[in-house]
């Protein structure tokens, strides 16, 4: 966590110092709404650490899970939780709600 914060800060400092062209968002928000991931397809850059903010906008708990990313996190109703992924190789990584397995999404790493 601390490392991530520090490196995120460093990245921001470097980005500010070097060029404003670095518009890369280190964080991506994925909402869960009516048993759907919004958006259900998320694109992130390869070989970078990215924070996925999972916001559960339902009245029931959800469990964000991905076997290829080795992530599983219970998100309480009306709450948000952070899941850090990467650095990842390019490819498609599936994720789903373990409490409603039909709720699926994909992380596209480019």
């Amino acid at each position, binding site marked *: *966590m601390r490392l991530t914060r520090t490196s995120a800060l460093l990245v921001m400092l470097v980005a500010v110092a070097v060029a404003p062209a670095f518009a890369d968002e280190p964080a991506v928000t994925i909402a869960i709404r009516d048993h759907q991931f919004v958006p259900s397809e998320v694109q992130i850059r390869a070989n970078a650490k990215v924070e996925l903010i999972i916001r559960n906008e339902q009245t*029931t*708990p959800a469990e964000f899970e991905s*076997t290829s990313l080795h992530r599983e996190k219970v*998100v309480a109703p009306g709450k948000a939780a952070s899941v850090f992924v990467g650095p990842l190789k390019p490819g498609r990584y599936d994720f789903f709600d*373990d*409490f409603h*397995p039909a709720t699926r999404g994909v992380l596209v790493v480019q």
Partner: protein
Amino acid sequence: MLATAIIVFREVLEAALIVGIVLAASQGVPRRGFWVGSGIAGGILGAVVVAGFAETLAAAMAGVGQEVFNAAILFAAVAMLGWHNIWMRRHASELAAAANRLGAAVRAGSQPLWALAFAVGLAVLREGSEVVLFLYGIAAAGDGSAGAMTLGGALGLAAGVAAGAGIYFGLVRIPMRHLFAVTSWLILLLAAGMASQGAAFLLQADLLPPLGQTVWDTSFLLADQSLTGRILHALIGYTAQPAGIQLVFYLATLLIIGSLMRLIGGAPRPARSTGATATHPTRLQPGE
């Protein structure tokens, strides 16, 4: 209702398989029913408490409380299972011999099975808290499906318990002199699988490096979500796409508990006469 049953079954399955194995592993130890029962009861109670504090837990430790908690529970269970295996190796020959001498007092049996009770309790707590959260979610949604939810939950629970009973009755058919060798291997693999799962949680919390995001991918052969995949995940820690750090923890657990079993648990061989006097078949009846 069916969806509820399936999800409850999945969560119960892992704990039930563990209970089935530890029951078989403690075959012949007096009062094991009390110890394992206390473990289950304590685990259920803990599951409700943990589910109640889920939000607080998730927010703890800068947002990685859930991961650290899960990892801690898993590593504690690994330690308990390891301890039990080491202890059992010392006393297994005694137990097997005592089972042959009808009416003989089992000296080893005077030892409490607290390590086993703890391991069971932790397994039930971890899986149970997710069941409680999930069922609470359905209940809170309040779409008048309380009856269906209760029925689905009960069905899922029954199916999970049946799986645990299945592995137990399968194991106790093994002759007593081989039973402990088999169950100690099973418990060793169980512990290694839990350690690998614990490593995955610490990896998720960013407290451990991945050492290779995906070392291999066997999801085309056996997916994690399939029933076989889930059973193997519970039993030996099967993961279709393991991270390097998971393999490190898996192998280290096998190595550490395995060598401690040899070093500390290496009991002096029982006197040959003890075994020679046995005339009864060593097969045990189910349920003692």
